[in-house]
């Protein structure tokens, strides 16, 4: 039996008359990791996969050892120092088999089950760590993983932090998406959303580099999550098993800072173009045809314009890869190129493709960079929200001004943080109508929170903490109540 639990784990061994030996292991949250003081952590699992893989491990233990029963429970959610994170309990006729099975289960769970933990450190920072690989490989540290890349002057410690804070959505885990996802993950992009509604098909395998022949028939997003967890334990995939359409695009795009278009059809490309420009999200696009392809960046509000500036309507009589064939390396080249452009956008380095249409013919090896300009009268660019995602971790992504148009959309709850003391205690607002400030873990995901304090410092800190715990809809009012007074009535 393998279970995930949001509540405190049950520790004591159960009893059965046929068992002579019980072995149990309890893993608890330590107060430090790699020399840094840890104040708490959050475990997050990809539930379905975790339960399935954990179940397989328990079954393997039962087959491999002479045991009577095996139980493994893993905590998810918020844990404090000393809380039990994992409990393994084995009952057997004799002690030796019980010990061996117990060790086997712990080792395998740490290696194979997709559970991530986010450690919160005493210095206010936090980081995602895959529970498995990180604990298992003594030679691996987050610093060593990125060492070669961090040496680059354009990256450095600060650039690596920007990548770690970045949230990138890759739409389509296909010929473009696979190499893009892999390199973004290896570069340390902290959160990768992956949207794809398909199951793996044999015809995908010659170009979609994250997948294996044995996985035909399984959902691609699950396979991506597994492959990325194995490649880099310090980043996390948010799988979205769906095809992007006009109906679901906004709710998906809004949760990310930048979108990489790995789709293979104009319908999806135009939806992403239109919604990214409207929502102020940088979009990296590409398309391939047999041995050729193009790539460009759409930066909302930029003079280079968007896809509709080039082709106002989605073309209808253009054939897809399925019909015309494609050499696997061609989308590979363009997917890697898209990842490069996305990383440059996050780091804000180099020249961008925001005002260029970049073409490459891999047969003739002829490359061309054609300057683009926004088409006057483009209805999409006319309503562009200037890109908010150039520097994804800038305070703009957490702070709002009283005039921010986002405040007019959706349901907002105003939280007055002026009464929250660092020492804790029950916060009481100075405004009798303001609701009590909830604990971070109790924040609701379906509403937006606007945190307000005297100068916008405490509220910014609070909003950042909430964001670190994966509450994307928490904002801080810039300059606080003092700022409001300056604006006047």
């Amino acid at each position, binding site marked *: 039996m393998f279970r995930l639990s949001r509540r405190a784990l049950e520790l004591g061994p159960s009893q059965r008359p046929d068992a002579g030996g019980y072995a149990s292991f309890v893993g608890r949250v330590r107060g430090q990791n790699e020399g840094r003081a840890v104040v708490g952590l959050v475990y997050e699992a990809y539930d379905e996969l975790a339960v399935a893989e954990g179940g397989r491990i328990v079954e393997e233990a039962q087959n491999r050892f002479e045991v009577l029963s095996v139980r493994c429970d893993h905590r998810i959610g918020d844990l404090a120092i000393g809380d039990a994170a994992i409990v393994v309990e084995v009952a057997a006729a004799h002690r030796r088999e019980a010990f061996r099975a117990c060790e086997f289960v712990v080792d395998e769970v740490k290696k194979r089950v997709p559970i991530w933990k986010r450690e919160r450190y005493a210095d206010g920072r936090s980081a995602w760590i895959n529970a498995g690989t990180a604990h298992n490989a003594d030679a691996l540290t987050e610093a060593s993983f990125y060492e070669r890349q961090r040496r680059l002057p354009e990256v450095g410690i600060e650039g690596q932090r920007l990548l770690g804070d970045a949230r990138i959505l890759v739409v389509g885990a296909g010929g473009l998406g696979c190499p893009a996802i892999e390199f973004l993950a290896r570069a340390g992009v902290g959160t990768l959303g992956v949207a794809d509604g398909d199951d793996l098909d044999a015809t995908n395998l010659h170009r979609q580099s994250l997948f294996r022949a044995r996985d035909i028939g399984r959902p691609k997003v699950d396979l991506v999550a597994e492959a990325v967890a194995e490649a880099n334990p310090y980043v996390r995939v948010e799988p979205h098993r769906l095809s992007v359409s006009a109906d679901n695009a906004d709710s998906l795009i809004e949760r990310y800072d930048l979108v990489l278009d790995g789709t293979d059809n104009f319908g999806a490309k135009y939806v992403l173009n239109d919604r990214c420009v409207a929502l102020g999200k940088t979009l990296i696009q590409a398309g391939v*045809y047999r041995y050729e392809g193009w790539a460009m960046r759409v930066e909302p509000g930029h003079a280079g314009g968007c896809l509709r500036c*080039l082709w106002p309507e989605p073309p209808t*009589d*253009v054939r897809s890869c399925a019909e015309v064939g*494609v050499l696997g390396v061609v989308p590979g080249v363009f997917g890697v190129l898209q990842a490069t452009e996305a990383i440059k956008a996050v780091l804000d380095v180099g020249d961008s493709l925001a005002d260029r*249409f970049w073409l490459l013919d891999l047969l003739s090896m002829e490359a061309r960079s054609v300057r683009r300009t926004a088409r006057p009268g483009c209805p999409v660019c006319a309503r562009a929200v200037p890109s908010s995602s150039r520097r994804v971790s800038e305070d703009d992504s957490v702070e709002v001004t009283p005039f921010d148009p986002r405040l007019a959309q959706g349901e907002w709850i105003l939280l007055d943080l002026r009464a929250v003391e660092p020492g804790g205690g029950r916060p009481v607002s100075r405004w009798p109508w303001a609701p009590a400030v909830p604990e971070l873990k109790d924040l609701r995901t379906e509403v937006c929170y606007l945190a307000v304090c005297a100068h916008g410092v405490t509220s910014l800190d609070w909003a950042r903490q909430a964001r670190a715990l994966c509450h994307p809809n928490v904002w801080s009012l810039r300059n606080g109540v003092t700022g409001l007074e300056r604006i006047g009535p």
Partner: protein
Amino acid sequence: MGSEARIKTVHVRYFAVLRERRGLPGESVVTDAPNWGDLYRELDAIHRFGLDGSIVRVAVGDAFVESSAAVADGTTVVFIPPVAGG
């Protein structure tokens, strides 16, 4: 006759499906077409690209131009159809 009707030589490059239909990455063309849209239609009549000129974008030198822009002697033009594969 105005200057537009002069005979010009241009270097045409084809992208994606156009290259395929033509069977060549590019060629030099002698034409009296006044603008790039007319030149495309002229070539389409010969080679049967099967793509309407309205969705083919024209790049001259290093920038996109309107298909109504005048054909200039000695320039390189790229005809770019939309491509979405991935």
